[in-house]
């Protein structure tokens, strides 16, 4: 079935033509409040973010390190919830119709809203993809069909521990891009082994024609550049979340734009190893 390419597909195609890797940024919705997050989303785009990952706060984020745990706590205290996240996306879309948005969170808040209701509302708000950290595809018989029906890309993690066979199977279910977790650990850990990432990435690429992003543990321009040399997308989260935690609300958007553009510049200057997925 051929459908018009999605925002995510269009974005990766455009970058591919320019031989550039995508910069995917993660911030937590509602950290420290909804209005600031809205400003920050535009600030991320101004700095050169290609795809926005928007964290949906959850009380029990088992896959997240301290920085994102604390961000979730701040967001929940500010009153953010899943309908609030969708409202934020809707407001973002009033000024930006092109930058893809991927929600990243945990299953229970989605389950509470109802799979079908969530998928329809997310699609209407302008969400493009959904990454549910605690939902491996084998448990997805409820959510995944609802996402596909609403034309939302289900995005999956593959890990250093994922077997080749399983990786092939996960890639079959995925749309948008495949997210390779660069280390055994939680978000924000700092022990990225670039060589090992390169090796595993070669395996993932052999299994899928989808773009492959790499994230968890990428903190600064140098690492982003190194990962951009081998991956289609570089995901930076905790480093931005830490800036938001320590920032002065008045100057935060400028700070975030500067931090992102430093990443973007380093990535664009890095020599790229190869032509990447179409």
């Amino acid at each position, binding site marked *: 079935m051929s459908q018009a390419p999605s925002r995510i597909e269009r974005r990766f195609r455009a970058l591919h033509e320019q031989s550039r890797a995508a910069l995917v940024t993660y911030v937590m919705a509602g950290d420290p409040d909804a209005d600031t997050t809205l400003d920050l989303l535009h600030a991320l785009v101004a700095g050169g973010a290609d795809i926005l990952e928007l964290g949906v706060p959850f*009380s*029990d984020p088992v896959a997240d390190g301290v920085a994102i745990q604390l961000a979730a706590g701040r967001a929940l205290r500010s009153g953010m919830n899943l309908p609030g996240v969708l409202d934020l996306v809707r407001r973002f879309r009033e000024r930006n119709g092109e930058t893809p948005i991927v929600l990243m969170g945990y299953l229970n808040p989605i389950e509470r809203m109802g799979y079908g209701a969530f998928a329809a509302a997310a699609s209407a708000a302008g969400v493009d993809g959904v990454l549910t950290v*605690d939902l491996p595809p*084998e448990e997805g018989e409820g959510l995944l069909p609802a996402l596909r029906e609403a034309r939302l890309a289900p995005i999956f993690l593959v890990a250093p521990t994922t077997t080749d066979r399983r990786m092939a199977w996960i890639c079959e279910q995925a749309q948008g891009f495949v997210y390779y*977790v660069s280390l055994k650990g*939680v978000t924000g850990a700092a022990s990225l082994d670039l060589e090992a990432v390169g090796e595993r990435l070669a395996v993932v690429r052999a299994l899928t024609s989808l773009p492959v992003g790499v994230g968890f543990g990428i903190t600064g321009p140098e690492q982003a550049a190194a990962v951009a040399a081998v991956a289609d997308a570089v995901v930076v989260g905790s480093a931005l979340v830490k800036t938001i935690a320590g920032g002065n609300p008045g100057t935060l958007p400028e700070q975030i734009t500067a931090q992102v553009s430093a990443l973007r510049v380093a990535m664009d200057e890095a020599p790229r190893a190869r032509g990447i997925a179409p």
Partner: protein
Amino acid sequence: MPMPRLEGAGSPLPDARGHFGPYGGRFVPETLVAALEALTEAYHEVGRDPEFRRRLDADLAHYVGRPSPLYLAERLTHEVGGARIYLKREDLNHTGAHKVNNTVGQILLAQRMGKRRIIAETGAGQHGVATATVAARLGLACVVYMGAEDVKRQAPNVYRMKLLGAEVRPVESGSRTLKDAMNEAMRDWVTHVDDTFYVIGSVAGPHPYPMMVRDFQCIIGRETREQMLAQEGRLPDALVACVGGGSNAMGLFHPFLDDPEVALYGVEAAGHGLASGQHSAPLSAGRPGVLHGSRTYLLDDADGQIQEAHSISAGLDYPGVGPEHSWLKDSGRAHYVYATDEEALAAFHRLTRTEGIIPALESAHALAYAERLAARMAPAQTLVVNLSGRGDKDIFTIAAREGIAL
């Protein structure tokens, strides 16, 4: 073909993917999937190995002190008036609770899998102590995560774990109780998945834990059945056990699932009362959702955020419950009821006074409901209460509540 499991674990559930009807499963970050698959495989392998069974049985007999007695509480029965109340004396196990039945099994499996580092979460500290104990015996490094709130409430057990050589890491995130300790243990496991074995302390978590922990705890129910047949010549009319994650209840209930004449009662902690909203009773007052790797009844708010549980007993202070209990609830095979903090305290004192047995506050919830149930039953009937642990660890909590400085 059903996969082989430890002998005596008769149920066809869960299915191969760890589902009990709509409950259970494996809702975890991808990094853990391979580890859970390896664990499931290793567990099925030891189920085929008579040598493992022999070693486990020997440890349960000579290290844990099994079988635990089934004791007829005559004065309590007399005072309550009604069915004859038997106590399954898990409090007499080494380390003072049923938790050790499971840690002996899991750590033998860890050793078999070549893991050198053991981690665990703990609420009351009983599972932490039981884990640290067996880790010490086998010379394995042990880290126990415990909510900072519980570290305060259960100081004697914290010290015990330290004496046993374990490192106790207080968890400051979230509500600083058992659920947060479990989050932190899962984060540790994601990070050290190659050399670390995560010993979960209840029938909760992702597959295979609810099945595996149940199978290790089924020794409670198997002994109870034999002892009841020997002492009364028939099966009991009812079984009563407290439900935190649900391991002592599942261990008692499971070998009786196919005996419809035996009624099963799981007692949740109602804290200040269900209406107060401050309780730990997901089966009585919660709804199905996803937490800690499985779909099960839990306590959450309208947005799907997990709520803090409350109970006077740290071991029941958990907003979720093992998925098989959710299944037994929906299928109607087991009944889930509750007892408040106050009721548990009254039962605590009553057992101490009438029988000379100081029960754990967790077990006191089961006793509180059992008293009500027994009073409605005929004197010719019998019920068995799982006395899941002893109350030495709780005397500080109780003294403080009664305004006594120790």
